[in-house]
Structures are given as structure tokens and as C-alpha cells.
């Protein structure tokens, strides 16, 4: 009889939906007003966007220029090389998922099925065929990894180490004009392909540089410390675009007259130098989080300074900051857009080429909305997948 449950709530609050509405949307007069304003904004925004997207927008500009947006002016007869390179990455992804993330089924299915899902979009027959092959390759890789996880582990790591050189080699080609894979000049690389390469090269090469700078900043040697601090603060104090311009205009001046480097490489150097300074600060955060006892224990075991760093401190510090590194990776991905300003034909730069065609004048909204969508899906996808994998693998926790 004295149970609290025996007292029924007022009639108006008995129904679940009504109670929820009252608690969450109409708690007070102010709340109710806010709800109504919010609802109007949502209605207005959704209606405006849908009306535009389905009645006004001319999406042919996207479907007709899909190839430009994806790979720029890359020669059509050599596109197969890119698909093979992608297939290699897909195979490795399948392998790795089966070996290290066995239980994250959702992530696995999402990653392996995404090419096949993309094939549902109107890309034309040839890309569709390749996209399905990509998915199949991924599944085969996954199956192989699943059956022999122990034996394959090391080979897969080696595969990842080799993946970037292989990808660049396949993209660039390596035989003279009449061979099977003629060399494709970097001036023909473009679209998402160029954005992807700039991002990956930028992050990979800035990583060792960033770690060195972070170590330098925490070093006890005054000269090294001062040099690191100066570099990091100088780079963090100026916009990326000035560094990209410096790389484009001044790098050729810095080098001996007989050395020439092409524009894509210059942009890569700029992005690497820029990203290294930010990465150094992230790594420093990780280093600071390692308790002093770890250093002392390593010393007690007779390890010298370098050994302590490489075997004890860095593995723990880097593991701690993996989520931050993913954020940095996404930031670099978004920042590569700036190479369009120095005249490269990346995802943003190629938009100008698309819009310069007489058939598609004045369709800026469609093109830039689509490009924003690519950036959004890839950035959001990366952060979402990394969060899921971190949870599954317990990364970042000790």
C-alpha cells in the first residue's frame, strides 16, 4: 500500500507521448515559443532545400562531369591502373578488418559494401563494373584474413607500408610512352584523386617530422628546443595559404638552379611543413600525459634516452592521441582544398573547369553543393568509423 507506484500521475501526464512532449518541448512558455520557432526554421529550411534540389537544380552537370570531379584530366585509357590501385587498398582493408577488428561487423559491412552501394548511382557501365569488382576484392581479402589471421598479420602490415608507393607508382605509371603503363604527368592528376594523394602524403610525411619537433620541443638541449619552438610557433602563426604560396614561388628559388620540382610536389611539401607543426603540438600533448614513473622505470632497466623514447614513451603517447590524430587527418583533408588557390586542379580547383564549360554556365550551386557533400561524407565517415573502431579496439584507453 505504501508503494510510490500506487499514486498515479495526473491524467495529462499519464500517456507516454504527451509526457515526453510536455517535458521536452513545452516545459514552459519560453520553451514552447522556442519549439515553435525551431519548427518553423526546420520547415522553412527543409522545404527550401527540397524544392531547390528537386525542381530547380540541374544535376546533369554532376553526372556529365563525374570523371572530371573524381580524377581530373587523367587519361581515360589508363583509368584501369587507378582501379587496380584501389583494389589493392580494398584488399588490404578487408584483410585488416578480418585480422584486427573481427567483431566489428557493422564497420566491416559498411566499408566492404560501400563501393557496391556507390555502383547504384548513375556512374555509367564501366565504373559500375569496377566498383563491384572492388567490393568483391574486399570480401575476398576479408575471407583470407578470417581464415589465417596469424599467418597474414605481418604480410598485411608490410602491404600497408608499401601501399602508398604502390598507389603512386600505379597512378604515375612507370614505362615510356609505348609501354603498358605510360607515365602520366602530375599536371593531369586532379579531382578527388589529387585531394586524396595530397592528404595521404601530407599526413604521412608530416608524422615523423611532427614527432621529431615534439621531442625537440621537450628536449633539454636549449638550441634544439629553441629551434623547435621557433618553427612550431612560426608555422602556427601564419595561414596555410601563405605557406602554400611560399612553397610554389620560393621553393624553386631555394633549390640549386638545375633542380626542378613540379607543382604538385611543391604543394605536398607545403602541406607537410604546415601539418607537421600542428602534429607536433598534438604529440607533445600525448608526451606530457605519460607519467614520470615510466621514464624512471625505463632508466632503472638500463635503457638509454633514445631507447626510452622509442620503446617506452612514444608507443604509449601515440596510442593515447590516436583520436586526436584522426582529427588532424580530417583537418589536413579539408585544408588540401587550398591548393586550388595556387592553381592545382584538386576537388575544388576542378570545379572551375567544370563551370567553364559553355553547357553548364551558372550552375555554381549544384557543383559546390556536390563538392561539399563529398567533403562532408568523407570527413564524417572518417570520424564515425574511427570512433567505432576505437571503441571496439579500446584504442586511446590504457
Amino acid at each position, binding site marked *: 500500500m505504501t508503494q510510490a507506484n500506487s499514486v498515479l500521475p495526473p491524467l495529462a501526464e499519464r500517456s507516454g507521448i504527451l509526457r515526453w512532449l510536455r517535458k*521536452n*518541448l513545452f*516545459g514552459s512558455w519560453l*520553451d514552447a515559443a*522556442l*519549439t515553435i520557432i*525551431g*519548427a518553423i*526554421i*526546420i520547415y522553412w529550411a527543409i522545404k527550401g532545400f527540397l524544392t531547390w534540389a528537386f525542381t530547380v537544380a540541374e544535376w546533369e552537370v554532376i553526372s556529365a562531369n563525374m570523371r572530371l570531379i573524381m580524377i581530373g584530366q587523367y587519361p581515360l585509357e589508363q583509368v584501369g591502373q587507378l582501379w587496380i590501385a584501389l583494389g589493392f587498398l580494398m584488399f588490404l582493408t578487408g584483410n585488416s578488418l578480418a585480422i584486427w577488428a573481427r567483431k566489428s561487423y557493422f564497420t566491416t559491412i559498411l566499408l566492404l559494401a560501400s563501393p557496391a552501394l556507390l555502383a547504384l548511382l548513375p556512374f555509367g557501365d564501366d565504373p559500375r563494373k569496377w566498383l563491384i569488382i572492388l567490393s568483391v576484392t574486399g570480401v575476398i581479402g576479408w575471407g583470407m584474413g578470417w581464415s589465417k589471421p596469424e599467418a597474414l598479420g605481418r604480410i598485411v602490415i608490410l602491404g600497408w607500408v608499401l601501399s602508398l608507393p604502390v598507389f603512386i607508382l600505379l597512378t604515375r605509371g612507370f614505362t615510356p610512352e609505348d609501354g603498358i603503363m605510360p607515365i602520366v604527368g602530375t599536371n593531369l592528376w586532379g579531382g578527388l584523386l589529387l585531394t586524396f594523394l595530397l592528404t595521404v602524403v601530407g599526413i604521412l610525411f608530416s608524422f615523423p617530422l611532427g614527432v621529431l619537433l615534439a621531442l625537440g620541443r621537450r628536449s*633539454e*638541449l*636549449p*638550441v*634544439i628546443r629553441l*629551434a623547435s619552438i621557433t618553427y612550431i610557433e*612560426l608555422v*602556427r*602563426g*601564419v*595561414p*596555410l*595559404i*601563405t605557406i602554400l*604560396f*611560399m612553397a610554389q*614561388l*620560393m621553393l*624553386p*628559388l*631555394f*633549390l*640549386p*638552379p638545375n633542380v626542378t620540382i613540379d607543382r604538385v610536389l611543391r604543394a605536398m611539401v607545403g602541406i607537410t611543413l604546415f601539418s607537421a607543426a600542428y602534429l607536433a603540438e598534438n604529440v607533445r600533448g600525448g608526451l606530457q600525459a605519460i607519467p614520470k614513473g615510466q621514464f624512471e622505470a625505463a632508466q632503472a632497466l638500463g635503457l638509454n634516452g633514445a631507447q626510452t623514447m622509442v620503446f617506452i614513451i612514444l608507443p604509449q603517447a601515440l596510442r593515447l592521441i590516436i583520436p586526436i590524430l584522426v582529427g588532424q587527418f*580530417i583537418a589536413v583533408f*579539408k*585544408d588540401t*582544398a*587550398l591548393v*586550388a*588557390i595556387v592553381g592545382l586542379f584538386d576537388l*575544388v580547383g576542378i*570545379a572551375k573547369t567544370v563551370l567553364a564549360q559553355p553547357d553548364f554556365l551558372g550552375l*555554381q*550551386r549544384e557543383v*559546390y*553543393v556536390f*563538392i*561539399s557533400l563529398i*567533403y*562532408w561524407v568523407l*570527413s*564524417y565517415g572518417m*570520424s564515425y568509423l574511427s570512433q567505432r573502431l576505437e571503441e571496439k579496439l579500446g584504442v586511446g584507453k590504457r
Partner: protein
Amino acid sequence: MQESAKQKATIPFWRDERILNILGQVVFIIGFFLIASLIYQNMKAGLAKQGITLSYGFLQGISGFDISETLRPYSRTSSYWQAYQVGLLNTLTVSIVGVIASTIFGVILGVARLSTNFLINRLAAFYLELIRNLSLLVFLIFWYLGVFLKLPKVREAVIWPGSIYLTNRGVGIPWGLPAESYPTFRLILIVGFILALGVFFLLRSYSRRTGRAPLTILWTFLTFTIVALAGWFVMPEKPLLFDAPVIEGLNMTGGKVLSPEFMALTSGLVLYTSAFIGEVVRSGILSVSKGQVEAARALGLNGFQTLQLIVFPQALRVIIPPLTSQYLNLIKNSSLAIAVGYPDVFYISNTIQNQSGRAVEMISMVMLTYLMFSLVTSVFMNWYNQRIKLVER
């Protein structure tokens, strides 16, 4: 015997860490200067081939190009240096407007994200997720090409209440024109400002002395408003003439016309940065423990007092450092003005460099300028951070 023991006790110098450290640094310095001098020699040789010697003297030369938006007198016969100053002022304008607007909008977003109202909360969360995963450059270009240049022609202008004219030539807003009595009115405003400051310090010292909490900010604001209003009505004629934009033929006249470039740059920067500031504000407010609010309530403070006296002062300590870096990001990102054609300092320096061929000088000047901006901002924010820091006993 003794000598050999002595030898064993001293480490040979190539294994002595102290000597190695010094040696390493010396080698580093020598290497650094070798590379630097190599780069310098290469650069000098390269520039000599182009017939250029490094010097900033060319800044006195005549620029010969026009700038669409100038806050100070400038014409194509002005010098490069004057052009650079125009750009500097434009960057400052965008930065100040951007910082203020994105702070206001960001705080609203952060509070909305914490709202108990389901709809508002979700709306803010959606906005944050949407913006934070976009590339700022694409966002800015979209606002420029996709929104502000797509507005109707001047003749078919969209007119919003309050005489705001939206056209593809810019956004016209009403603006005050200074009349003859304006200088006197400005004097009154300054007096009002000083009075308000006096009230502020008086009330604050009163609250420190007695422990009561008068509504300092409100009274300060009221003082200024009362003086300003009194000045406005005491004047024989109105000090500011209200001037709304009017469409005359193919042009807008009167009022103030904000160019599409300026609008695209500021709105893009503000919408983008405020999403990040919103996250910062949210995490700051969340960092104040719930017990603090409950304790404030138990002491009899009302909702507003709780926010003003308990939550915000504590949240600010967490908010200020990341907020500083967002401000710095906004200032640095304003250099993307070049993508939408707004003549900020970077855009102008790029034009100068195309005109004069002085790449090294201009890039170093721009870098130094942005470094100065960053330095001043962080010094100011650090000073502010010191001031609001928890005083530990």
C-alpha cells in the same frame, strides 16, 4: 695502480653525455647555418638571373591597380605601401566583425546545444555536425558564387523589413549620415562612455566591499544609453541623418552597400567559426559541476544570478584558451578572401607581387603581418586569461 683507477673513473669524452650534448648542438647550429646560407646563395643567384635584388624599396613605387573596397583614401597612383595598408585595414575589419559576430552566434549555439528543449537541442547538434565537416574554402566559394552573386538584379531587389536591400551588387543597409552637429554629439557619447566606466568601477568596488551583487553590467549600460539619448534629444538638430538605400536606375544609392565579397567572406567565416565556438562554449559550461548550480540555488540565487555569478565565471576559465585559438583561426582564415575576391591583406599582397615580381619580399611581409596579428591576439587573450584565473590561496 692509482693512475689506471683514475683513468677508469673518467669517461672518455666521446661517451660523456654532457660533452656529446654540447657537441650535438654545435653540429646542429653549423648544419643549420650551412643549409641556410646554401638556400640564401641559391635564392640570390636565382633572383640575380631575374634581375632583382632583395629590398623593400619598391614599396614606394606607384601601384597602378584599383582596389574595390577602401577604408582610407587610395587611388591607382598611390604607392604599393598605401595599397598594403588598405588591405591591412580590410583584414582588420573582417577579423573584428567576424570575431564579434561568431562569438555571439557561437554562444547561442553552445547554449542551444545544451537546451532541454529537444527540438532546439537537435537543431543545434545538426548544425554543428553539418558545418564542422565541411571545407571552409568550398563553404566560402559557395556563399559567394552560390548565394550572394545569385541574388536578384538591383531592379528586382528583394527588400527585407528595415530597408535592407538584397541584390547581386551587394546588400544595402540603412546607415547614419553625420550632420553638422555630429562632432558635439560624439563628444557627448565620449562623456557618456567615461561616465559609464565610472559607474562600472564604482559599483564593482561597492560589490567587492559589501559582498552585495548589484547589476553592474546593466547599470553601466543604462548610464551610457541615458546620456546618449539625452544628447540626442537636447541637440537642436538630429546629429545623424537616417539614410536608407534607394534604387536609382541600375544602381543603389544612399545607405551603406556591403559588397557581395565582404558579405560572403564574413558570413562564411562567422557561420563556420561559430560552429567551433559553439562546441567550445558547450564543453566549458559542461565543465562546471552540477553541485555548483545546486549550491547556488541553495544559497537563494535566482536563475540569472546563478548563470552570471557562478556558472559563467567558472566556465570562462575553461573556454578562454580554446576560444583564443578559434579567434586566431578566424583571423588566419580571413586570408581565404582571395578565393572570393575581397581585397584583404593577402589578396593585395598577391596583386602587388604579380605587378612587381617581388615574391620573396611580399610573402615575408604577409607572413610577418599575420604573425603580428596572432601575437597581439594571443597576448591580449593571455592577459584576459590571467585576470579571470582562479585566485588560489
